[in-house]
């Protein structure tokens, strides 16, 4: 299904070059897909998530991702614990007892004057690979197994991956992992095989409340902007978008979220940065340091001779 162009990773053209922000919304073009469909992604609206985990099951069914253990975590109803090689959708459950403002949605008189139910909140959120515009996993992959597709998504090619695991430490979200049984790295493909057939990803298809929305990224960003304003106006000023800003540390996510609390609450990094961002500078510093060391060594040798 993938074209030869599609297999070309969009790692920075030359070591040392800064990421090209102008192409932030069009990583497919940057990867060489000259005539490509619009970039697609997920908008996960956690304010309507009911925690049914249909996304987790649909994902595993469609992608034949193996079951990965019967572990009662004690983390509320979350027994998945996190994204990994064998979990590409993960629903977090966060029980909060702190008093948080509740919606002022109803206009009827309230005899109590306060919301006694405001002291318990149960947040649910379906996490997934962010399909970053600046994808560190892809940057560091030495074999080209990780690639940017024509849809702007990031996919691991199982038959090329050598299991080195560089991508695992490179991901700022802890999304990708290595599966012990086959040694390879695995993560969400945004159902690459379905996209080619004009189908939406399995998780979005299964989501009963449309908490997971799939579509062209620019449209989703508009929808999300409108939705977050709605939710804020309905009395939840703490609602925010996460990963929707092309100016953030990963150039904006292909899969972004509407959260009802700070990202840390959901186990998400508050200010994710593509881990390869500082590489050029680090290399420069390393180069200077190395040059300095070499100079010092030379000087020392020379000094020794004198």
């Amino acid at each position, binding site marked *: 299904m993938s074209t030869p162009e599609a297999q070309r990773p969009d790692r920075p053209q030359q070591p040392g070059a800064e990421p090209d922000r102008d192409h932030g919304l069009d990583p497919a073009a940057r990867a060489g897909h000259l005539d490509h469909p619009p970039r697609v992604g997920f908008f996960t609206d956690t304010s309507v998530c*009911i*925690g049914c985990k249909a996304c987790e099951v649909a994902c595993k069914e469609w992608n034949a991702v193996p*079951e990965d*253990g019967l572990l009662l975590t004690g983390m*509320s109803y979350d027994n998945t614990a996190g994204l990994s090689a064998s979990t590409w959708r993960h629903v977090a459950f966060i029980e909060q007892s702190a008093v948080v403002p509740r919606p002022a949605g109803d206009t009827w008189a309230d005899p109590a004057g306060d919301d*006694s139910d405001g002291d318990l909140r149960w947040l649910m959120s379906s996490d997934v690979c962010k399909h970053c515009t600046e994808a560190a996993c892809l940057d560091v992959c030495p074999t080209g197994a990780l690639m940017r597709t024509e849809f702007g998504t990031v996919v691991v090619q199982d038959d090329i991956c050598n299991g080195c695991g560089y991508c695992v430490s490179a991901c700022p979200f802890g999304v990708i992992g290595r599966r012990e049984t086959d040694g390879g790295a695995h993560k969400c493909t945004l159902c690459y095989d379905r996209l080619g057939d004009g189908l939406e990803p399995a998780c979005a298809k299964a989501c009963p409340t449309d908490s997971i929305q799939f579509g062209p990224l620019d449209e989703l960003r508009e929808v999300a902007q409108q939705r977050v304003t709605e939710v804020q106006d309905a009395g939840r000023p703490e609602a925010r978008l996460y990963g929707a800003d092309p100016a953030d540390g990963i150039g904006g996510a292909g899969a972004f979220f509407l959260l009802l609390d700070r990202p840390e609450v959901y186990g998400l990094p508050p200010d994710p940065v593509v881990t390869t961002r500082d590489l050029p500078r680090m290399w420069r510093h390393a180069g200077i340091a190395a040059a300095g060391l070499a100079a010092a060594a030379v000087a020392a040798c020379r000094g020794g001779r004198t």
Partner: protein
Amino acid sequence: MAECHPVAFQWVMEAKARGATVIHVDPRFSRTSAVADLYVPIRAGADIAFVGGLINYVLQNEAYFRDYLLAYTNAATIVTEEYADTEDLDGVFSGLNAEHRFYDFDTWRYQGQQGAEVKPASGERDTPEPGERQIRSQVRRAGRGEAHGSGGAAASGTPDTDETLQHPRCVFQVLKRHFARYTPDLVEQVSGVPRDQFVRVCRLVAGNSGRNRTTAFVYSLGWTQHTVGVQYIRTAAILQSLLGNIGRPGGGIIALRGHASIQGSTDIPTLFDLLPGYLPMPHAYGNDGLDGYVRAETVQNGFWANTRQYLVSLLKAWWGETATAGNDFCYDYLPRLTGSHSTYETVLAQIEGTCRGYFLFGQNPAVGSANARMQRLGLSNLDWLVVRDLVMIESATWWKDGPEIETGEVHAADIGTEVFFLPAAAHTEKAGSFTNTQRLLQWRHQAVEPAGDARSDLWFTYHLGRIIREKLAARAAGGDGDPYGMDRPVLNLTWDYPTAGAQQDPDGEAVLAEINGWDARGHPLSGYTQLAADGSTACGCWIYCGVRADGVNQAARRRPGREQSWVAPEWGWAWPANRRILYNRASADPDGRPWSERKALVWWDPEHRRWTGADVPDFIGDRPPSYRPPPGATGVDAISGADPFIMQADGKAWLFAPAGLVDGPLPAHYEPQESPLPNLLYGQQHNPVREILRHPENRYQPSGDQPGAEVFPFVTTTYRLTEHHTAGGMSRFLPYLAELQPAFFCEVSPQLAAERGLDHLGWATIITARSAIEARVLVTERMQPLVVQGRTLHQVGLPWHWGPNGYTTGDAANELAHLALDPNVHIQEVKAMACDIRPGRRPRGPALRDLVRQYVERAGITDETGTEM
């Protein structure tokens, strides 16, 4: 609802997005609570007090929809002088036979009705032989509360009314007195719902009802599985009728069923006391002959007046040419009831040895039914058992690895039951229809052939019948006697469904065609009004008549919603007559005009002299609002143009039910069979006519103020999780689901955990008089202690999906449950019980029974405990 019906819950989320306020009342804070606007914690078992308090609020504050109330309910009808309320008799109604524990309904009738007054719909209606008290009691216990489920019960004559609602014995005043003590303070004391929160709910519900707005109630098994389950729903029915929320868009009382097509399995019942279409099963005493049945079961007015048409057409569908006017259309081929044969009484019959063989179709009673231990003891005493399921469920393997084998009480070698396990086809492997809670039939197509030996239920039933018939026919041909004609009902059945494919699977649509029915020329019928009593029509289920109108499978229609009106009548097919909202005549005022534009659904078109609108009008199409029945009119002719409740004999919604229920014309709060609390409202602790099943394996605990009640100080309730399905046969065995909820756990509050030394993720043992089980502990603030009657009450939450087989295993919550049943529908009370909980795992081997025995002794439990009226 989000927890157990996540797919249906999308519509609640959509309503919420459009501005609806969602209130969730539940003992535990669930996934539904998480997205509700208001979560109200409640003590399990106290809902009649809570909803009764709502009724009282509506009555005291005159928040009812007066025009609707006057025109469409029996508020103005005057009740007979002999009626005595729970307020007069400290918690029981008049007519209670304390010796045999049943109610005579005679005093619950309306004043001014003629002749035999109101006929009870539940229990038999004919007068039994004099002196046959025992039989009468037994027959009444057979209930038939579900009979006429799509309509009402019988009433005859014209009762007296007082349109000013001032008469002290008019239903409105009776209702007012009955609920007067259900004040916000009392609601708080009984249910634990804080006063202010309760009043807030009252204002929200009342404020969102009336001409322009409607409120819907949604319930599931949390409301039904009680010894007063039917009365829970009745309480909601009264409230919704007072508020004008029945028969109108956005209103109603919505029952979320526990399985796909459970609605279908009551419409075309798997219940012992019903025939298809809610026709009562004939009784052995009374109901003699077709005429006797029709006389006893027919209601004089309304659409139930056509009972003969419905039954004769059913008999024609089953016995075809054999059924003739000369032989009562084979009416005597129908089995007769002699008492209750509900699932739990059948378990007793198994233990007693009178029930020798058993079929289980997709049911797992060894862990999934109340008092699971008794279920297994029953199965162990059978000659044969057929289990048709997707996987090796506990009900197929208990004889070799069940809990009693572990405790050493029973040895596999001693169990004589021959078990036949027959793999079943899954829903993707067969075609057929599901009937959902909206009475909507949706046809499914077969995706793949069943693998291996798996076969559809239709295949099994058809071929089993075919083979039995062949054997009986051979016996008859061989001259073996059938002196009593016992074989004839089976031999004469119409059993000629076409089969297809390599497996010879019968064609589901041929069955649907028989259900829909045909006329004398074999043409498909288009509606139940065509049914005839002379044998010229055949119809397998009168309320489904029309599902194959014009020979087209209407249930298979899938026209997208955006391509049709907002009612979407061309998606599937809803019984009856493709009506999406029952009693929708009530969406218009008595003159036939919508109560408001915002809530318009159907209305009278004076120009064309027709009822019209977005839905199929649930009324006689050309009957003008001004029509009043002439004196002496009967049947459909007796329905006034202004009476929307056309299945009720008087055309009204019943605030007070003069017939139809075996445990009272009005709901009253009774404590559950097992409760740590006394009944604050009445001297009567329990539902006096609840069904008690006395058995050494079904010991009840003391309640309320009784000594020993303190041994079981906590309330426990069972429920489901999104990740699993019922008794786990379809989920525990699947890795993708098992890993999401990988262990049986109990949910407790931090306070209870501290009080009892329970550690998060540690083990706890939960004990009742029946058994003790162990569960991992989830300590969560989602379980909140309640203050009830001045004390802190803790509740223990138990998801009941587990059992010893499968990929994730654990103890079954149903080990703890007792068998005390709702007397109308014979359902168990697993949603509110009392228990003890302590840290650590339960004992193994014989020590398990020792632990239970210690508790029974400590609580002073005897075979009489808890059986008092």
